[in-house]
């Protein structure tokens, strides 16, 4: 099991009902972790419209979740 902190923003946070949660996961990569959490919270945004970041840096979906890391799923941005 890997224990990571997941951050939610914008509509993902609204759907999750929390802006952060600690998750214990067996997901092999961040893609699998998203699918897991998508099922739990009913996220409407498909993975291909998201990016994923770990500890404040964008990373690839193929990376494995690391213990003690901070994972953020980044919905399409709308700054500016």
């Amino acid at each position, binding site marked *: 099991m890997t224990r990571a902190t997941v951050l939610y923003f914008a509509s993902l946070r609204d759907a999750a009902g929390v802006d952060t949660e600690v998750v214990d996961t067996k997901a092999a990569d961040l893609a699998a972790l998203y699918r897991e959490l998508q099922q739990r919270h009913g996220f409407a945004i498909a993975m291909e*419209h998201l990016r994923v970041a770990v500890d404040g840096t964008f990373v690839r979906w193929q990376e494995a979740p690391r213990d003690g890391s901070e994972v953020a799923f980044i919905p399409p*941005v*709308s*700054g500016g």
Partner: protein
Amino acid sequence: MTRFILSDTPLDTANLRADLLDARVGAYASFEGWVRDHNDGRQVNGLRYEAYAALAGNEGNRILADALEQFEIIDAQCVHRVGDLVIGELAVWVGVTAAHRDPAFAACRFIIDAVKASVPIWKHERYADGSNDWLHPE
């Protein structure tokens, strides 16, 4: 150097501009995004910007470093608001200085495009009909 900044208080463009004054500068191009009273045909009453601050700082500063490397410019800065904004309020400011106007314009455009495309900031709009929505353009 921190060239990209998130601010939770109103921006003063006169101060932001003054920080870029330099005797070598011949051209100053700036861009500002202001909160419009409409979007996609809906009447907007106000909005809120939320950011993932750590990643936004990293991404924003990377974009500004890219601009300084790609264009013949002297300096560049970008500040983006977070929090609640009213109609007419300044949401984002980009300022670029250069000896000549070609690179000043090009870098200014590059920066605002890149910031809009990849910096983790989200807009939450409140509409005149009482509804509200996160904007997640695809």
